[in-house]
Structures are given as C-alpha cells and as structure tokens.
C-alpha cells in the first residue's frame, strides 16, 4: 500500500482572541493520496478552511497549531518559514474562493503567473513567459497570448479562477487544495471549473483536496468525502458508501437541505434547525447535539468518537441513521 501524500493526525488549531481561546479545529485526522480527490464538506465555521490554511502555514499570528501534518513524511507543523516557503506553490498549492480579490489588481495576469514560476525555478524570462502561456492553455483560457498582458479586472470570474489554477499549477504541485474554488461562480462555470480540475488531476496525477459546503459537488467529483462540524470530522467514507448509507444525522440534514427537482412545488425546504456552533464556548458532548433531531442525554454528556464502525466508513455518532439495530434503540429516552 502506497504511503499517503498528506497525513493529518489530530490537528488542532486555536485562536487567541481578546482573552479567550477559540478552537477552530478540534482533532482532525485524514489522509490524502495521489490521484485521488478528497472533499472536505462543512458549513462556514466548521474549520475546513482553517485546517487547509494550517497545512500551508498561512494562518495569522494569533493561531496556535498543534498535532501533526505530514507531507511525504516531512512534519509541517513547526517547520521553519524558509522551508515552508519552498513547499508553497511548489509541492503544495492552493486555489482560493474569490478570484475578484485573490489576484493583485495592479499587476498583469502574465506577471502573476510568471512570478510563481520564477520563485521555484531558475528560468529565463522568455522561458517563464512560454511556460505561463502553456499553463494558461492548459487551464483552457481562451486567447492565452493576448490575455498575458491583461489585468485581472478585464477577465470574467470564471477566467480569473482559471488563472488562479494556472498559478497554482506553475510549480507542478503534487497536492492541490481548492478552497471553495467554485463557490463564487455561477453554476455553469462551476461545472466547467470542476471538470477542468478533474481533468488536470487525471493528467498530472495530483492529490486534490476540495473544500466546499456543497455536498452535491462532492458527490459528483470526489472519491472520498469528509464531513466536518465545529472543527471536528463527523463522518468520513468513500463517496459511494457515504451517499449510499448516510449515518450522521448532520450529513443527512445537509443532504435533505438540498432542493430537489423531484420534490413537489412549494415543498418546505428542510433547513438544518438552530444556529451554527459558537466555537468559543463548546459544551461537552456532541457538538451537533443542540440541533440534532435524534439527540439524547448521552449525546449531550459524552462526545462520540470518530470510529470506523463499518469497513471504510467512519462516523462519530451515538445514534446513526439507518441502523435499526438494538444498540441504537437501547438508549432511546
């Protein structure tokens, strides 16, 4: 069995804010493999973005990272800034959410791409230029040569996102993290970008971590799905398995909240009731307890561990869905 490219082990990220501590990521563990796509799904505040930024050490100074992040065996937590910079853009690359603001408005597109090239390789200006155009064509940016000299505001959202992907690919990364990369785009463009990412992954053999709140997207493009809530992983399985037998009530609620065409018109949208958790004050017990339809006293007292309950399917719940066995009914109140 090949060693995983990236391995997170009990990652915790705390933020020091005006006296109290906010735990944004609370014991996250997963693996990412070459040529596979892992989807990190969760609401805002679930810790998915923070965990991704922790991998690349792009968090503000107020953050405290503990636990382990191993990339090809190298421990990233606590790695010197100089060595981290050698990895950023080079081996591990990231694509962000808002292409309108993620590109420097005062620099030309081409310059921003060639900068990524020059950082990690010793090439001449002409070579960098050609490679940049090559990358732009790789991400299917029309009229690449002309676009080279244009500014970000002259491109549409979808095109800008392609540029971001080109920048990310400039260093031939082995791991690409797409942080809500398509959230700000319209549905059609979204599909195009996801197709592009999948295609690139197949061609280049990268590991891809896609972060999103969109389960539908995960269903279509991911090999493995990890659902996060309040900084923890609450369910994880291969895509087929997860969507075949959803166990976590939270995941089920997320699925149920997606509007469906087959529903009758005027069907009430099943929103997840309650408020997202306040990460500063975490009560003991399951973090989803205040909003869970299946909640019992046990849930409020003890947090369920994330455990492999079925082969290839991990979840953290005392009362998983769809399991009509005696163990679940026993603790009904």
């Amino acid at each position: 069995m090949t060693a995983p490219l990236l391995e997170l082990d009990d990652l915790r990220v705390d933020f020091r804010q005006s006296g109290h501590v906010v735990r944004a990521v609370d014991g996250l563990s997963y693996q990412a493999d070459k040529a596979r796509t892992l989807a990190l799904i969760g609401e805002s505040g679930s810790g998915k973005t923070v965990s991704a930024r922790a991998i690349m050490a792009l968090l503000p100074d107020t953050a405290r990272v503990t636990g382990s992040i191993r990339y090809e065996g190298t421990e990233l937590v606590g790695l010197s800034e100089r060595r981290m910079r050698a990895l950023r853009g080079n081996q591990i690359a990231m694509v962000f959410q808002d292409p309108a603001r993620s590109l420097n408005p005062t620099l030309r597109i081409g310059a921003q791409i060639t900068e990524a090239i020059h950082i990690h390789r010793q090439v001449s200006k002409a070579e960098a230029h050609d490679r940049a155009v090559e990358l732009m064509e790789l991400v299917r940016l029309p009229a690449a040569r002309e676009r080279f000299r244009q500014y970000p505001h002259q491109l549409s959202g979808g095109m800008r996102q392609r540029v971001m992907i080109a920048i990310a690919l400039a260093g031939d990364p082995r791991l690409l993290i797409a942080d809500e990369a398509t959230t700000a785009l319209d549905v059609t463009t979204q599909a195009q970008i996801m197709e592009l990412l999948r295609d690139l992954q197949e061609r280049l053999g990268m590991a891809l971590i896609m972060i999103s709140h969109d389960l539908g997207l995960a269903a279509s493009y991911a090999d493995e799905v990890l659902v996060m809530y309040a900084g923890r992983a609450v369910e994880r399985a291969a895509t087929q398995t997860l969507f075949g037998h959803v166990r976590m009530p939270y995941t089920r609620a997320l699925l149920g909240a997606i509007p469906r065409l087959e529903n009758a018109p005027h069907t009430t949208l099943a929103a997840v009731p309650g408020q997202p958790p306040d990460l500063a004050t975490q009560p003991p017990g399951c973090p989803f307890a205040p909003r869970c339809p299946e909640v019992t006293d046990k849930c409020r007292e003890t947090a369920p561990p994330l455990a492999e309950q079925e082969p290839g399917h991990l979840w953290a719940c005392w009362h998983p869905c769809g399991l009509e066995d005696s163990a679940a009914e026993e603790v009904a109140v």
Partner: protein
Amino acid sequence: MAAPTEGLVPGVLEPAVVAPPPGEEGRLGRLRVLGGIWLPALLVAAIFFLCFVWPIIGPVPSPTGGSILNSNDPSFTPGHLFGTDATGNDEWSRLLYGGRASLEVALAVTAVGLIVGGTLGAFAGYVGGWRDGVIMRALDVLIAFPALVLAVAIAERLGPGELHAIWALSFFSVPAFGRLARAATLRVREQNFIAAARLSGTGHVRTLLRHVVPNILPELITFALLGMGIIIVLEGALSFLGLGIPPPAPSWGNMIAQGEGILSAQPKFVLLPSAALFITVVSFNLLGESMRARWTAR
C-alpha cells in the same frame, strides 16, 4: 467612480490610524489601548486646567505690566519659576496666559468650523444636486484662497487681535470641516438604514438630525481633535508673523517671535513656548488618534 480627491480634505493633514491589531491584546495590549485614550485625555485636561483655572486660583502673577527692574531674571528665581522676560514679566505666567489665548482661539475656530462647516457639509452631502455643487464651489474658493492674505488683511484693517485671528482661521476651518462632513454624509446616506427611515415616512430634517448627524459625529469629533493641534500651530504662525495676538498680551506664537532675536543668547524664551506648543499638540493628536482607533475598530 469618484475621483479620490473629491470628498477628501485638501489642506489639512490627516494623520493615519495606528490601531492595535485585533486579537493581539492580552494584558499589555489592553494597557496600551487604555493608555491610548486616558493618558492624552488627562494631558489635555491638565493643560486646560493650567491655562484656564490655575491662573485664577493659584499664585500666578500677571503676565503683563512687569517692572523693568525685574527684567531678565534667570529661572528658579523665587517667585518666578522660569524667570522673567526683557520687560520684567513672569515667564511662567506668560506661558499660561499665552496658552489660554491660543487655546481660546483654537476652541473658537474649531467650534465655528464644526458647527458652520459641519452643517453646510452635511446639508450639501444630503441634498446633493445643484445646491451641493454651489456649496462645494464656495468652499473650494475658501480653501484655495491663501489664508495668509486674509489674515494680513484682517490684521491690517481691524488690527491684530484674538477675535480677528479667530475670524481669519475660521475661513480655513469651515471648508475643512465642510468637506469632511460632506464626505461622511455621502457615505452614511448610502446605508440601508437611511432608506429604511425615509421609507417609513421620516421627514428630511428628522432623518438628518436623528440618523445622519449621530453617525457622522464621531468622525467630525475625531477630526476636530486632530484639527485643534493644527489650528494651535497656525495661530502660533499668525502671531509669529505679527498678525495674531499682539504683544504685550502673550500668545505662544508671539512669544516665540519675540524670542527669536535673542535665540542664541537666551534660548529659553523660544524653547519654553515651543515646548508648551509641542506638548499641547501632541496631546491633542494622541487623543484624536486613539478616538479614531476606537471608532473605526468598533
């Protein structure tokens, strides 16, 4: 897209904000933030006390009418903390009374600017249209007009004096406040709660008074505090040029002018009022900046 200078305030230096970063506080940080407001506020209060209250209740001799027999006493002569000047006036007293004069001018000019300029600017920003254009052009004229010409003119025509210095400097502060108020009003006007107020039937005047003014006031007050420092310096400049408060009545500016001639011989006559000016301006600047940090980091 509005050009960057429309709505900015030409002619007035606006020190930039230095706010403590979010989340980086802890004990020392909190101390710094608190020190940010209370220390300068205390300083300002102390300065006002010294200049306005202390001469009345304390043992401070008159700043004028000194006897030539006492002239040029050195510092720490009994009864004269900082000695006396060339005509026998107590230097400490001159500092305090001079400060009072300078502060009076600064307060008056700021008040006029705030009230007249603030109202004009808020009105212009709120109503827009041709009225806005007219008011702004008028203010532009005042800004482009060399304050110096006006100051000289007023001084020549009416004689130099405290009131006239106030007149002259107000020509400068009204447009400054006006432009700021207008810019702030424009920003506030776009907010949704204004639309909500109007939609629920609130009249224009009420909207202005109840919704616009409270929201532009913090900015105006911060500007006023920072402006105090600038106006005190300007008043000093006017008095220095002989156009402000005329001797023998002291003002920090004319004290410096008088001391210029004997700078090498007796530097204290320049250094003392300079230091007083400096401390006062720093206090106002610090206060203004920490208020601004407070308001924007809300």
